[in-house]
């Protein structure tokens, strides 16, 4: 049967883990889940048994310990495959499982077919390209690319069992010693309902004032392209892209960004894209839903002014988005 590592926050399973459970169910056999530290209700996700690993050393994330636990439990259950979400932690832990057990690992898969040989499709280039591959392994190790599988619920009688792993001191040596909170300032890029990004076309660090103004009016976050962070105009934490933040807003406003695959890999989750660009033939135009052609330095302030005018006319209607105006 497949064994799935389920990540959680305070007893709530993460969406990528639930997506992974949906994919693992199609692999065949009753699905078993492993959660670390705290029980999670997975009875609506077709899980036959949830194993709750409990150990004194597991109060903070320790990737080698998690990998050891997955290995021990998969041996005990004779699991025919191990799955985890293709998150930072999921990929980290599964690579350690693969290294310990001497097995191949396919990361960020979007589909898997079982058989004598496993046929799978996985993401490359942050999802801008797909690879069809074949894996030969006595126990396939698979991570599932987040937000590529639709969660399907399925009721099941889920047994909940405690699992006590045997952990060596060395397996607890790499662990989170401290969690430092970054002070909250406005809306986080990953969770914003609106993101306004600027690229090379913005021209300078100071040029971002109009981008910030529009984002503020919409209660959104400011993003940028890789060119902008490489030039030092914005911090790397603002970068949207394959090597930056992955965003999923209702509306993504892209100003002066050509739309290279590096950038587009970061905004595949955006519901709608508005491109503002002086080049009507830029690649972004083939990936956007709406476009305005022209100089962003004129267009962006005009949109901000139009929003202000419309709000004044509709006063006293409140800003529809929580968080309100930051600008």
């Amino acid at each position, binding site marked *: 049967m497949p064994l799935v590592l389920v990540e959680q926050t305070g007893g709530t399973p993460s969406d990528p883990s639930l997506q992974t459970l949906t994919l693992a169910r199609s692999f065949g056999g009753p699905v078993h889940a492993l959660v670390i530290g705290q029980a999670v209700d997975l009875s609506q996700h077709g899980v036959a048994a949830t194993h709750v690993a409990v150990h004194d050393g597991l109060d903070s994330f320790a990737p080698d310990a998690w990998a050891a636990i997955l290995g021990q439990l998969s041996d005990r259950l004779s699991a025919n495959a191990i799955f985890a979400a293709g998150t930072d932690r999921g990929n980290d832990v599964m690579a350690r499982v693969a290294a310990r057990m001497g097995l191949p690992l396919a990361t960020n898969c979007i589909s898997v077919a079982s058989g004598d040989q496993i046929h799978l499709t996985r993401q490359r280039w942050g999802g801008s390209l797909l690879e069809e591959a074949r894996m030969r392994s006595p126990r396939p190790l698979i991570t599932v690319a987040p937000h590529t599988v639709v969660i399907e619920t399925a009721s099941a009688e889920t047994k909940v069992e405690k699992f006590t792993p045997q952990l060596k001191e060395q397996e607890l040596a790499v662990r989170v010693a401290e969690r430092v909170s970054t002070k909250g300032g406005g809306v986080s890029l990953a969770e914003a*309902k609106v993101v306004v990004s600027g690229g090379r076309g913005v021209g300078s660090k100071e040029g971002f004032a109009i981008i910030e103004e529009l984002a503020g009016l919409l209660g959104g976050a400011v993003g940028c392209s890789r060119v902008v962070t490489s030039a030092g105009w914005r911090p790397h934490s603002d970068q949207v892209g394959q090597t930056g933040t992955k965003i999923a807003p209702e*509306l993504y406003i892209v100003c002066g960004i050509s739309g290279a695959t590096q950038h587009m890999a970061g905004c595949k989750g955006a519901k709608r894209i508005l491109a503002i660009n002086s080049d009507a033939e830029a690649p972004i135009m083939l990936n956007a839903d709406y476009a305005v052609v022209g100089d962003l330095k004129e267009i962006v302030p005009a949109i901000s002014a139009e929003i202000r005018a419309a709000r004044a006319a509709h006063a006293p209607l409140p800003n529809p988005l929580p968080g309100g105006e930051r600008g």
Partner: protein
Amino acid sequence: MRVLVCVKRVPFTGGKMVLAADSMALETRHLGFTISPHEECGVEEAVRLIEANGGESVVLTLGPPEAIEQLRDAMALGIDRAIHLQTDGAEWDPEASASAILDAIRAEEETYGPFDLVFFGNESADSGGFQVGLRVAQALGRPAVTGLKGVKVAGGSAHCEQEVDGGRDVYIVPMPAVLTVKEGLNLPRYPSVPGRMRAGRKPVATSTPTRPPARLEMLRLVVPPGQGRRAEVLGSGPSAAPAVVEMMRKIGVA
């Protein structure tokens, strides 16, 4: 101290993915090449660590003869010398890559002593396997921390920071250690002209490992559907603003 940074040669992909005729690679005739972005920060970090602490930095790549360009780029930024594990350009799966790199590290350390730190990118830009560094770390029996956006070295330990939702997770591991890094760790410098001149004279050790059969075998590449939408043009210039705000109202964001 001694620091090794492992890098991969990858194409600049530009606006669109175009496949070669056999669908086994990207068509790269019209593309430039670079060091995979996360690893550019690994190179910069290695150079800074040696500038601050003294010692030697080494860059390693597994790649085709042309990957010498990326090794020279790294040496132009200040890396002292290079190891080139030459391939014929065929794809190496993550297990095979890790095993060739491991052999090279062992041979290197036998002659020159252990590396205090070995840097990898968190994942390569192209194949994105997320595992070569961790496989090498496991085989060397060294602690490994992934996805780092902050590294400080003090008193024989590496202080490592990962960016997570709402903050940073801190790990402190003894050296020698293997660290995988992400773009944003630092802002890599540009090479200077004298740096480029010096890079041409720095030593490169070349060998040609044999590629073992792949257990994770690529069959073909596919460009995902969804490229090639055509945007609805709401207007041109600032006069488009009312149409834009109308669209925003319709979808409930303004």
